């Protein structure tokens, strides 16, 4: 008898997991509300480069033949009785469940947030909002452009600074840099929260004349006065601003409810991705509350671990991150760390930027063809273990 695996979510984690299961042993069903799989990192280039390159593909086209795909949202999950109820009312029984529903921005925590997004856009939600950012920076001829980290967590820890770097490059390339001030505000003690990576990026901010405000926990945006106000009452004046929205977890009803955190992320073992208290249910990627960055590489690596575990292998996560980080002007770096090692101080290089672009181009193939890419990635992750790189980049 084949084991029935239900995967909720056809994004990076869900699709990679499904494609990694041998269909001789598993009957795999992927469920997603949307027919599309989005390559979210590309929103950055829609927002700050005006890119029109398609950033989505049909989920079905990314799944191996033989995997079932149901286009429907999941309404509720009953972990005790192994049942998933779909929005149309259909019920799926499973032997194993993998929740990969990702995370989504929320606009209720910061006063005036929704209005600000309607006006200036953002690049963590939709293509339309990212296009609004492109319009905003194109119409700003003088004054202050601000990027404000609105709260944690959010997808892709480097993304706030990536937007900032690309915006600075944009205004400079338009010859407006002496008239447009570029300002960054974060709730952390330094521009990038992890110290070693901050040592790489802070000099770049100084070199490029970008101002930054630390310890700024955004409370509200008063757009009539054009100020962002912190929880301690500090004010930041702007002419256009982009807020990195705090994210929340799944909107699927899950019982028992105590597996969820207050912001609806699902608690799980950080090594095995087992949902707290369940050996037949897993959560991977952004939807989980495990202490790792919310990023595609995490979802990818966790998907591989869970696929191996479902096949009886005692695979474990090491908490590896490998986040490409665009630093503007054709430079990039990677944020590389794991559970046991701090972030590597990898200096800016043109290679890292090129690697980010090549990755973006071949992303779909990496999802679709794990037989080819798994060994290549494995070799890459092995070669770039943070412990090894820390001996080179001291």
């Amino acid at each position: 008898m084949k084991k029935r695996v239900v995967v909720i979510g056809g994004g990076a984690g869900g699709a990679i997991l499904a494609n990694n299961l041998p269909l001789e042993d598993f009957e795999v069903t992927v469920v997603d509300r949307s027919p599309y799989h989005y390559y979210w990192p590309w929103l950055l280039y829609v927002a700050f480069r005006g890119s029109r390159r398609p950033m989505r593909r049909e989920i079905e086209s990314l799944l191996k033949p033989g995997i079932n795909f149901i286009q429907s949202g999941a309404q509720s999950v009953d972990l005790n009785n192994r049942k998933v109820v779909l929005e149309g009312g259909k019920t799926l029984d499973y032997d194993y469940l993998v929740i990969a529903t990702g995370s989504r921005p929320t606009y209720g925590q910061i006063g005036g947030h929704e209005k600000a997004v309607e006006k200036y856009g953002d690049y963590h939600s939709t293509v339309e909002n990212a296009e609004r950012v492109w319009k905003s920076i194109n119409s700003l001829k003088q004054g202050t452009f601000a990027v404000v980290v609105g709260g944690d967590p959010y997808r892709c820890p480097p993304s706030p600074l990536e937007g900032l770097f690309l915006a600075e490059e944009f205004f400079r390339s338009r010859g407006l840099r002496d008239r447009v001030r570029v300002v960054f505000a974060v709730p952390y003690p330094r521009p990038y929260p992890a110290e070693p990576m901050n040592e790489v990026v802070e000099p770049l901010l100084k070199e490029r004349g970008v101002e930054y405000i630390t310890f700024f926990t955004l409370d509200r945006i008063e757009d009539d006065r054009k100020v962002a106000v912190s929880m301690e009452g500090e004010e930041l004046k702007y002419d256009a601003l982009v807020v990195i929205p705090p994210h929340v977890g799944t909107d699927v009803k899950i019982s028992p409810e105590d597996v969820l955190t207050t912001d609806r992320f699902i608690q799980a073992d950080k090594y095995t991705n087992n949902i707290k208290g369940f050996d037949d249910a897993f959560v991977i990627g952004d939807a989980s509350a495990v202490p790792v960055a919310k990023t595609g590489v995490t979802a990818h690596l966790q998907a591989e671990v869970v696929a191996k575990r479902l096949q009886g292998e005692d695979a474990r996560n090491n908490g590896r991150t490998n986040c490409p980080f665009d630093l503007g002007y054709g430079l990039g770096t990677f944020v590389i760390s794991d559970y046991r090692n701090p972030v590597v101080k990898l200096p800016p290089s043109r290679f890292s930027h090129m690697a980010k672009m090549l990755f973006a181009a071949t992303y779909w193939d990496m999802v679709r063809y794990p037989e080819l890419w798994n060994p290549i990635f494995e070799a890459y992750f092995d070669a770039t273990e943070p412990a090894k790189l820390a001996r080179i980049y001291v």
Partner: protein
Amino acid sequence: MPENRLKVDARGIACPGPITELVKAYRNAKNGDIIEVMATDPGFKPDVEAWIKRTGNQLLELREEGGTYVAVIKVTAKK
């Protein structure tokens, strides 16, 4: 309203770092609440101290037990 005690387990976070977990708990807290953060990242201690100094919240306790830092913070500085 009674005070809440928010427990945050940030052990093992290297990137983006445990300070982001503290910031998240702080956003959802109100004056009078207690936030307790556990972390293993060695950068956590100076970060918490700097954060307390700048935001004006109150540090009730900061101790180390076998490689784990525990910070107990009382939220007082919200306007």
